[in-house]
């Protein structure tokens, strides 16, 4: 969507020759728009909210925050991979619906008498994976913009969920062990969060230490060059969407487990947490920038903001407005130092 004229090409080369002081300054400048700025913002939020309502800093509430963070955290890993290569994946809400519904109907529930155990997980995750694969193949092979394909996949996933749901009664989890799992604690942290943290680690490894992860970054930076350098660009593209689909499926299962019953709208609103979180974290929508850690911090920022506003007694009507305002301030603050007459921003 974006092609940015990089001004820091020559500057970067010059920086190599210059010594200590200049590169230190550059490091601080880059840190300010990345993790350091984000961490500072997080600390400020936490301090302010703790003053507004002492309950905010209680152990229960922090556990609650970690519980709420888990689903968007899983999603943002997939979203970051896709955005890093300059594409976008709008399909998460649909994939979550389809996978969540498939999982609960195959697990012990009030409606079907089926319990496939582990197979329920595999089938639901497979559904997410195949929806992601479908998006990736249509995008990479048929050259349809990812925005549109994933918009279509959103509806397709939602349609599958609606068909699975049918006209019957609401399926609720009957297995206590499964229903309690997400809130259960290990080492003081909820299981949901452990799962999400595992996914984040997986995302970090892929993004930093595999050909796929580095390749996606290269595609986002300059696709023609990546292609002419002999990178299997289409394979990487399909891979990114497949992972995003798989993680969408996992998020759908987790969200269904957290809710305790199946819903076609299980993913409602998740898209507008995941993408802003990645963007606030500094993952440029044009691709080639950003990282898993920053996106994860972005998720924490948004969820803590949401949680803190509720505890501070802010009318829920104002929440989307405050969200929007913070998003605006964050992106403008990041983009401000890089303005230039010749810069192209879309």
């Amino acid at each position, binding site marked *: *969507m*974006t092609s940015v*004229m990089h001004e820091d090409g020559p500057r970067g080369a010059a920086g190599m020759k210059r010594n200590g002081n200049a590169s230190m300054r550059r490091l601080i400048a880059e840190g300010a728009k990345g993790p350091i700025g984000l961490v500072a913002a997080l600390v400020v939020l936490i301090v302010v909210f703790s003053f507004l309502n002492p309950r905010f800093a209680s152990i229960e509430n922090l556990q609650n925050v970690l519980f709420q963070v888990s689903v968007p955290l899983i999603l943002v890993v997939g979203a970051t991979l896709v955005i890093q290569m*300059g*594409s*976008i994946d709008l399909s998460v809400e*649909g994939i979550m619906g389809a996978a969540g519904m498939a999982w609960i109907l195959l697990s012990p529930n009030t409606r079907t008498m089926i319990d496939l155990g582990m197979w329920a997980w595999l089938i639901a995750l497979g559904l997410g994976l195949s929806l992601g694969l479908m998006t990736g193949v249509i*995008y990479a092979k048929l*050259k*349809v*913009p*990812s*925005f*549109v*394909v994933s*918009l*279509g*996949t959103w*509806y*397709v*996933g*939602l*349609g*599958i969920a*609606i*068909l699975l749901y*049918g*006209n019957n009664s609401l399926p609720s989890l009957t297995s206590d062990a499964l229903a309690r799992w997400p809130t259960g604690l290990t080492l003081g942290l909820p299981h949901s969060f452990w799962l999400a943290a595992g996914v984040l680690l997986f995302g970090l490894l892929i993004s930093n230490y595999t050909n796929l992860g580095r390749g996606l970054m290269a595609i986002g930076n300059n*696709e*023609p060059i990546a*292609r002419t350098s002999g990178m299997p660009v289409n394979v990487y593209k399909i891979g990114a969407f497949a992972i995003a689909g798989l993680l969408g499926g996992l998020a759908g299962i987790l969200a269904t487990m957290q809710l305790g019953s199946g819903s076609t709208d299980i993913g409602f609103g998740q898209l*507008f947490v995941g*993408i*802003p979180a990645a*963007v606030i974290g500094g993952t*440029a*929508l*044009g691709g080639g920038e950003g990282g898993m850690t920053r996106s994860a911090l972005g998720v924490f920022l948004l969820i803590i903001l949401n949680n803190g506003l509720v505890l501070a007694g802010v009318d829920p*009507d*104002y*929440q*989307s*407005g*405050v*969200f*929007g*305002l913070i*998003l*605006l301030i964050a*992106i*403008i603050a990041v*983009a*401000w130092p890089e*303005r*230039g*007459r*010749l810069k*192209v*921003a*879309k």
Partner: protein
Amino acid sequence: MTHRADTPATVEALDRPDKVAATLARLRRMASWHIIAPPLVFFAILLVVGIANPAYLGPFGISIATTSAAPILLVALGQSMVLNTGSIDLSNAAIGLFGAILFALTIPEAGILAMIAVLVALTLIGAVNGVILAYTQVPSFALTLGTLGILQTAALVTSGSETIYVSENRDLVTALHTIKTLSVPLTFWIGVLAAIFFWALLRFTIVGQNMTAVGKNESGAILSAVPNRRAKIIAFAISGFASGLAGLAIVAQAGSASASGLGSNLLLPGIAAALVGGTSISGGQANPINVVFGALTVAFVPIAAQALGFGAQAQSLVYGVFIIVIVALTTSRSRGSVIK
């Protein structure tokens, strides 16, 4: 890919007079696939539905399709103008809904004057989007996502989370919906008029050509002294204005407005309609007249699914597959090799 026929035709044109060649070239350009595809797709769906269920081809079907297409069309027209400059406006449907609430609140007291004032205000909101985009150079996707949130809150707060009924002067707005020419409500005709106007703007005016230039190659446009900031601001202002008309269409149809009522789900259909209408998502290509067919197609797909016997539950699935297939058929792949 769209100009696949070029090579043999150029050879042929060599031994003919220049004029004939020029005319042929123009004809070929007019007939290029992404120009004729949107109406073709619409009429193909219409034909299939007509064979399955002839009732949908009569005044009844036309009235249903155009009524539900009207707000989608108006939102999509603004969106296609913004997409044409290479940006995207995620806040336009929210502007429309906020507008609908403002219309419902003010029309009982001030009538026509209120309509004009609200339209001006909404155009300004769109322009503010454009100004922020042009001067802070943030990505439009994230920027308009932010304004979307703010406008949602504005809609909730101004309406007090309730449905606002147009008590007085009700006929003034509902007339836009009830007056029908050829079974098509006035709201849709407004959309058609706007489409023709925007098409002329893009085709014949410097302002319009500047917008397309910015969308095609912004660096090139800046270096050629095209006022790129002004072009973006105008495109977003147009989007705000068109969304305002969509808000008017919503109030006309429902006689009321609320933050979660009719028209609260226009964003994605609007984008889909613009894309099905042959607008390129990477900018530099838009044909507002084709967006009319895009909006008709998008509004018609659920109706077609029903007419073809798909159950209500399969609607979403059919809709998703349709969007992918239609855009795969109509998308223009001629602009560079990079598709994002």
